[in-house]
């Protein structure tokens, strides 16, 4: 069964139309976080960091909940399945639409943050640390998305989501207490050290692997249920 990319495109556009307000909301909240981050006070810096982290986490999980889990709970899936769509097209469209929603918010925040770090009082040496945390969020998102695509279960998705969120604090603490990261926190020197390269490579490989596995598994299905 070959995939009809026109069908995939129609399903992606449908999800974008349904959730464009949500994307706009996250981008707007991201702008607020960036504004606070750029303000020269320690408390606004921390507030900005928390808002940006929250926006990136929420954008991903909200996208998964709205497009995959809610579609099943609201019983709109049978409507889509009644159309000339095959399981592979449906799974591919869900993955792409979801990643599109998440990465719109994520890329906006990350690009703006890099620009902000490079052009304001914020020490440039923080950039590898920031990027590592942002990439951890990408990996977490990809794992939850894969679980949601494969199980379509609210329970399993929330369980994975909570588990990965619990890991976020230890990851931040471990990175912040590692001299390779913290020794550059107050300098304007950006050092792409081996720990950063290794950790982001591992996270990207893990993200890619789980998404690839989920897509291969789902696109091989002959039936929806």
């Amino acid at each position, binding site marked *: 069964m070959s995939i009809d990319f026109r069908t995939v495109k129609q399903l992606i556009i449908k999800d974008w139309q*349904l959730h464009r307000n949500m994307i706009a909301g996250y981008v707007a909240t991201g702008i607020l976080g960036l504004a606070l981050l750029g303000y020269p006070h320690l408390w606004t810096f921390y507030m900005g960091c928390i808002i940006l982290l929250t926006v990136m986490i929420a954008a991903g999980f909200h996208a998964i909940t709205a497009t995959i889990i809610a579609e099943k709970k609201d*019983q709109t899936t*049978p409507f889509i399945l*009644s159309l000339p*769509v*095959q399981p592979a097209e449906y799974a591919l469209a869900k993955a792409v639409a979801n990643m599109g929603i998440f990465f719109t918010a994520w890329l906006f925040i990350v690009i703006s943050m890099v620009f902000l770090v490079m052009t304001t009082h914020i020490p440039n040496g923080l950039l590898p640390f920031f990027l590592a945390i942002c990439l951890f969020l990408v990996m977490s998102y990809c794992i939850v998305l894969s679980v949601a695509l494969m199980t379509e279960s609210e329970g399993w998705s929330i369980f994975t989501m909570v588990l990965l969120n619990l890991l976020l604090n230890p990851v931040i603490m471990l990175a912040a207490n590692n001299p390779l990261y913290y020794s550059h926190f107050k300098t304007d020197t950006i050092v792409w050290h081996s720990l950063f390269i290794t950790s982001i490579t591992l996270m990207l490989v893990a993200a890619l692997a789980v998404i690839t596995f989920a897509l291969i598994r789902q696109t091989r299905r*002959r*039936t*929806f*249920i």
Partner: protein
Amino acid sequence: MQNVIQLTDINKHYGHFTLENINLTLPAGEIMGLVGVNGAGKSTTIRILMGLIEADSGTVDVLGHRLPDAQVTAKRQVGFASEDMRLYKYQNLTWHMDFVQGFYPEWDADYAQMLLQKFRLNPTQAIKGFSHGQRVKASLLLLLARRPRLLILDEPTTGLDPVARSEVLEELADILRDENRSVLFSSHNTHDVEQLSDSITFLHDGRILASEDIECFVNKWRSVRCTGHASPTALAELKPAHLRQNGSVWQLKIDNFQPSMLEAIKAQGLEVVEVMRMSLEEIFIATVKKDTRHEH
């Protein structure tokens, strides 16, 4: 005549339910009612027909396409609506029509407009503001305007209040009269099926109990009321689907009724008071009870 649906030796096993050896054909242009109690296997059969689930064994052909492999080709010519199908509540009907139109080049916009008026639906109102009856009508509009060759409706009237149910059935009957479409229509409500269908298939506990033309089927059954004293064992030899004694009054519900059976009843010492045709609902209940008795 070409069969638009051909299920051959279909089996599907779940933990507590088995769809067993289902053989079903729907000739082109015919309206078939699929009747069964809740849990009889109607929805499972329909999901197999739509390529949504795969049978453990057997073959499924819809409009000449083998499913589930050719499900996309088949679904281009099939209109499917089920009781558990919902539209996107924050979008209006115009959005839904635009969306569905993208999948069906043969979408009939004029017909859709005509149905909008006929169903008295506001295309700019969000679906969440629709009543259940209006949502069912909106779903019907979305599938009828595709001009499908085959309609598969899984309990479309379930959950509707009597007025909305009557409206939906009337509209559906009008539409089906106007069009030369094949329809498979599942319901646990025999009145709906009787009103719309040419033929009937009784499904119970994952098995087909009967499948034939509705007129012939109803014509084969009689309810016979008699009075007098007779041996229940002797009467049981007539193999009634249902035998009930209330004092000296006996009631027999008989499948494959032959006038000669009345002589056999009289021969047991009973006086035949009344021979009545049975409604589809009475036949359905008698058939299910008979099958359940045989199981035990």
